[in-house]
């Protein structure tokens, strides 16, 4: 069924899963930027550029996802439930995870837009919340990937695994700049 009364509902699910995929790519590019250095900056520049522009691209899908889910009316989600977690009549817990994700995303976006007007450590602190945002998005998406749509569920699961691997790599990996900084900073300096 492609056209009909469920079109919006299907559109919502499709844009939801695309959002998850794009978000995962954006997160991985961010992880790569943070955890890897090369003597020439070519790949870093591509990663940085795609990280920033794709995050904007993801927004289009995410906003469509949210609007269609509410407007569709198939299930009862209020506009307020988009930002206030756990107040939705329909699946309060799972929609709530989505709402937490939206709140974190807004904070991450606003701080990144204002990055040059705030302290670097404050931006960094908020940007770390991306990992949490991504995780609740995965939970939200995986739990909603209903049994009749195993492909959607599988895609979300795949995103979760790949993102998890990227995060583990980030913890395990290091590079000369960070190592040397840590090493010297541990000496007596005060």
């Amino acid at each position, binding site marked *: 069924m492609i056209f009909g009364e469920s079109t919006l509902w299907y559109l919502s699910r499709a844009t939801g899963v695309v959002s998850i995929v794009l978000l995962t790519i954006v997160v991985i590019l961010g992880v790569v930027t943070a955890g890897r250095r090369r003597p020439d900056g070519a790949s870093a520049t591509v990663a940085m550029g795609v990280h920033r522009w794709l995050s904007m691209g993801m927004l289009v899908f995410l906003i469509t996802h949210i609007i269609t889910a509410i407007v569709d009316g198939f299930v009862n989600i209020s506009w307020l439930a988009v930002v206030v977690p756990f107040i939705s009549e329909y699946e309060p817990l799972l929609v709530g995870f989505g709402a937490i994700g939206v709140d974190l995303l807004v904070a991450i976006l606003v701080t990144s837009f204002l990055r040059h007007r705030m302290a*670097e*450590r404050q931006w960094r602190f908020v940007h770390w919340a991306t990992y949490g945002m991504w995780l609740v998005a995965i939970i939200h998406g995986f739990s909603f990937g209903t049994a009749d749509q195993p492909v959607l569920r599988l895609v979300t699961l795949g995103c979760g695994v790949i993102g998890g691997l990227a995060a583990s790599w980030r913890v395990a990996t290091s590079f000369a*700049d960070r190592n*040397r*900084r840590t090493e*010297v*900073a541990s000496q*007596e*300096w*005060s």
Partner: protein
Amino acid sequence: MTTIVDLIQSAGLTGRGGAAFSSAIKVKAAWENRARLIVNACDGEIGAAKDAWVVANHLPELLEGVSLVTGGRRKAKTLFATHRGSTTARLLAEAGLPVLETPERYVSSEETSLISLAHGGLARPMTKRAPFVFGGRDSQGKRIRPTVVLNAETLWRISQINRNGVDWFRSFGTADEPGPRLLAIGGHVSRRGVYESEAGTRLTSILAQAGGLPADAEYIGVGGLGGILLTADELRSATWDSPGMKRFGGGMGPGIITVWNPDDCPVEVASKMIAFGAGESAGQCGPCMFGLPALSADWAAFSEQPNRDTHWRLVSRLGQFGGRGACHHPDGVARFAQSALRALGPELAEHAENQCTKAGGRRYAQLG
């Protein structure tokens, strides 16, 4: 009304800590921004001794200078910075002064290191996007209150200018670099110590106060690790002022002359100093934390095997340090290495032929 800023301005006083920046501009900015004063009495450079000498011998005049600069503000909260555990720290504490104790690290007496330490941070240099006398932020965004750092000798000179007048001050030195200035003379001389000097004097006359340049002296360091190395012949022709030192790639710096012991292999001494400089990087700026160890390795490679290849690597390395740190530590070590390379040319040739038999030099004689 003539203010102290006008007096310092007419006297042409410049900072005696090594940077030689106009003291009038600094003090004026400090007044306008109600900046806190930190007195730098660290003697941070290798061979430096004059800050300790000022504290030990002229503390009341130093405090008079502090009072002139802070305008006698009761809430000025001036801090006196010196290395932890030093005699100067003890003297300052005994005088009831608030001591800012900085760790025994080369870059910890740099002015932004002291400002960082005074703000509860680590004693490591900060990036100066603008002078901290205006206040500002460190790289991570932490707020830094307006702070001015003046060298202990500079403050003593301010009190002297106030007492004795501009004409007295200008009766010393040259028109461009007026005033008396202290100089620490150390190493292979008969009377090490801190001496009064003035710009425009021949270095041999300055050394005469410390017993003269010994006949067997071969190499003389001027300005410590951030300074230069001269041969004895160069020193005999050199004049103690900025143009005179610039001839050899240096400046007057914080006033240090060190006559190297002729029994020590000078190539090895230079190696040790460069290696020390590499180890004193605060590990904050890439070109310093990686560049200085690489410079040290390139210097060692060239001194052990001077050939066109190792020479080229060393020279191209030396060209990579221009202003690429938050502070000037990497520039200083590179300047020293550059001048040591020039001054030690004949010694390095000896190393190539394995003829060096001096202390520390044997390692090379046994090679090959």
